């Protein structure tokens, strides 16, 4: 499946360090991908609804969502996203530094498709991103757009 079209991944993350790390990790992955980055919850919703500067952006195949973001946090984004008939089918992977039980429970309650804690070291991070990519973009069968 490596010769398929590049996939679009939306990364909602306010920490530039994490954005860079994710980019690095994805660069080392097997899939050709286009990574789109938004820095807060409001931006995320604008991107997904093709509003303003995001008028021509492609619909993502996967959303990587940080929970703690300014303006509108990941939980609110999840809630809006999963309430939207158009957008609810896009798989959302919560990728956060919190391993608090309440965050995990809350995310799944809001219909997150997966919940991952960012590992402390880069190798671990790399592994998580690779696994993610492989599972969500190659292994599982997703609904057509």
């Amino acid at each position, binding site marked *: 499946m490596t010769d398929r079209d590049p996939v679009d991944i939306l990364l909602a993350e306010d920490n530039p360090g994490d954005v860079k*790390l994710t980019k*690095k990790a994805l660069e080392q992955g097997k899939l050709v991908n286009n990574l789109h980055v938004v820095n807060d919850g409001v931006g995320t919703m604008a991107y997904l609804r093709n509003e303003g500067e995001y008028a021509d952006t492609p619909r993502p195949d996967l959303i990587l969502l940080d929970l703690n973001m300014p303006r509108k946090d990941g939980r609110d984004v999840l809630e809006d996203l999963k309430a939207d008939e158009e957008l609810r089918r896009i798989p959302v992977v919560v990728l956060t*530094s*919190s391993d*608090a039980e309440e965050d995990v429970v809350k995310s799944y309650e809001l219909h997150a498709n997966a919940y991952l804690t960012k*590992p402390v*070291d*880069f190798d671990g*991070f790399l592994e998580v991103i690779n696994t993610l990519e492989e599972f969500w973009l190659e292994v599982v069968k997703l609904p057509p757009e």
Partner: protein
Amino acid sequence: MRASKRVSTGLLAGTGTVLAGAVLFDVYEDWLVQGEPLWTSLFENSLPLLLVGVLPWAAWRLYSSDRSAAYTTSVTKGTLLGAGTMLLIASWVVGIQLFQGQLKPKMIVVQTTTVGAVAGLVAGYNTAEVEQARETTKRQKHRFESLFANSPSAIVDLAFEDSDGRDSATSPTGPGDDPVIERTNATFDDLFDYVDTDPSGRPLFEVIPPESRETREEMRAHVERGDVYTTETTQFTTEGGKDFTLRLVPYGDRRAYAIYQDITELKRSQRELERTVDQLERSNEQLQQFAYVASHDLQEPLRMVKSYVDLLETEYGDDLDEEADEYMTFAVDGAERMQRMIDDLLQYSRVETQASEFEEVDASDVLETTLKDLELRIAEVDATVTHDDLPTVRADPNQLGQLFQNLIKNAIDHAGDEPPEIHVSAEQDETDREVDFSVADDGPGIPEDQQERIFEIFEQGGRDDDGTGIGLAVCQRIVNRHGGDIWVESTDGEGSTFHFTMPAASTQQAETSEPQIQ
């Protein structure tokens, strides 16, 4: 009341009239018909004559007296009984003598006197009883008066409707059923500033305003039903505003005692206690929140440090010299150590945030599970862990397991060079309310001056190890949550024994001592 008085008076007067007629007839016969001297005849009839004199007097006294009906009736009964008995005996004696045809005046006097004496005895005995009853009443009254006067509570004797028919509607407070004060005790007078004036006769609510309309109506309703009414009220007194419990105790016909008990102090300490508990709960919650946020939010920057040091090494490792490598090692070590501390801090805060309910757990089972989890670590240092049969306790099973784990791990971590020998035992105290667990090791022991400090967070008791010193702090927190104690007994160089207490099974003590947080 009046009817019975009239009947009694009538009976007495009637008896007197009948008796007078009989005496007059007898005197007439003896004196005029039989020609006996008048004095003999009068002498013979001296007793009935006395009665003839006494009866109207008694009747008059009864009629004009304002004593109770029961008193009138009993006096009437006594008089009639006495008079009747003497008449009967006298006529019986006279009858016999007439039958024998010979009148013996001496005999008549002796016999009637005997009966009179007996009647007097009975009456005297009766009077004595009455006296005795009066004495008892007096004592009871005295007892009550003493209690009433010296009670630390302010007491008001109340009438809800004046017995003289005076309508309480005429009271200055206007229409309504305000109870009227009959009398008050000294405590009341002191408290409400009535030492020089007498509040008697005034409506209660004028002297002590009620808190609301409902209170008045409820008070009245309770008194009518004869139920005790209890409420709380705040009143202005000579000592300032005070809180009282008011107990309205009805007695008799529409009467009641209003007892004001001063609970100002109680209220004050109660409020203070509530405030303190509130503050404690809040500060505990904040602490909880702090520990959680600290451990949680600290992860983020730490992850940045660690990830980018990693990345630096991966991407530029070849370009760096030995010195730079060393710098990086220090950075990584620091980050790792911080990571452990954060994890521990999180664990520490979770003692409260992720706690389970207390249940009855077999400590032996919990320990067995813990030992299985520690199998590798135990094998690694060739440690021997033995234990007695442990009792059932009331605890959070996970936390009890964590306690055993931390204490055993602590013993292993701090063992000397020899393979450690650890023994877990338990003792139930005499009152059966607590179980004293102990985890004993044969390690180097803990110097006395450090025995308390080791339970503090991030305190390692100056011992050289790579732990963060949170294990024992977590233990203490767990034990505290269970309302128990934890301490260590140790002699430097001769091993340590860690003790902790847990509530024994089937006692409710644990529940009351468990702090209700979150």
